[in-house]
């Protein structure tokens, strides 16, 4: 069993990234304004797992979605909460085959000015390199909007950080534990 100690995330999500590992992200708004990714490899026989890589980014992610399972490619959707802008963006990332590192690519702006999301923006996979978005927009003509996007993979440009294990405050670890339990539970069904 994997038990990550994290401090009150506002958003959490799990997505399988390789057959033997998944990407767990937890996003924060106030006061942290950051998000963390953890790559967790699991052992289907003993239903245990180990965190093999972590990455922290200085903005709150709302969701991630695996685009290309087996190649480690995913996309994330986030809003910039700095004091100068409230932009909404998409970022792409890749987990290495050995699960030991995470790299992020460029961020693509999809709204130049948004108010604080009271409703989560949503992202879905269309193919190994395309996705679609749905989000609520207050500014200008308010309503629910959609866009689609494309990911182009070429030579390296991304930053990467390896091997930081998260050990924060234990406020809401129960739900994290349950979420991971759920994932392992699901895998148990599938393998059975």
């Amino acid at each position: 069993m994997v038990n990550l100690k994290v401090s009150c995330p506002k958003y959490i999500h799990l997505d399988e990234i390789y057959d033997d590992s998944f990407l767990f992200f937890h996003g924060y708004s106030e006061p942290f304004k950051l998000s963390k990714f953890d790559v967790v490899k699991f052992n289907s026989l003993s239903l245990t797992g180990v965190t093999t890589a972590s990455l922290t980014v200085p903005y709150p992610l709302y969701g991630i979605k695996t685009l290309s399972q087996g190649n480690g490619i995913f996309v994330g959707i986030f809003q910039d909460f700095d004091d100068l802008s409230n932009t909404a963006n998409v970022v792409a990332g890749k987990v290495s085959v050995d699960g030991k590192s995470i790299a992020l690519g460029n961020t693509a702006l999809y709204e130049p000015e948004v108010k604080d999301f009271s409703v989560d923006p949503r992202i879905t996979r269309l193919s190994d390199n395309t996705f679609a978005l749905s989000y609520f927009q207050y500014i200008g003509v308010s309503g629910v909007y959609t866009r689609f996007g494309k990911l182009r993979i070429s030579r390296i440009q991304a930053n990467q950080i390896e091997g930081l294990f998260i050990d924060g405050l234990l406020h809401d670890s129960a739900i994290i534990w349950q979420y991971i339990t759920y994932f392992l539970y699901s895998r148990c069904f599938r393998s059975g």
Partner: protein
Amino acid sequence: MVDPISLNVTVSDASRYSNNTYFSVSHEVVGLNANTYLLLYFDADTGSGPLTVRPVSLVPSSSGVGGLRKVFGVESTLQSSALKDNMYATRINNSTAAVVFLNAKAGNVLTVVLLELNSFGKSAVVSFGSSINLGTGTTLTEVLDGYTYMDIDIEPMAATNASNVESFVVLYSDVSNNGKMTSAYIEVKYWTVQECFCHILLSSFGH
């Protein structure tokens, strides 16, 4: 080390698909294949409304992102439903998806409904298929109005790029059972939207 590549994302122009200005409108997007996705929302400018689905087809374009542009299909509304809070959907195959939501019009029961897409482009339309209720809803209504919110999730039991999903799991907090995290394992038995759900296995766990 991550393989030596870069990841460059581009996004298309924005399209407003609903003029709902309610501050916490529930909405969802689910991709069916490389050229089709479904937009789900409740159709009202108040705190609740019926589930509405609108398909989007991506058709060739000379100037769009990836050489594609959006074409909206026909809206479909499930009149027997009323959504207030979160909903989540998952793909089953290239023309079918499942959505889970708390149905305020049926005693706040947690409902899973199949959606089937017919046609492509402007004539694309979604039909609502069979549904199942997780719990009776009776106990859920004991929760005071405004407190029926609970986070829910629906995940396929298959790889991301699987052609067909034969089963999926709904995860929710069961307010009729002290809010325990509960998973419903649902096997899709038949590939028609009218006759599909079988083998539901409920399991509660956690605190």
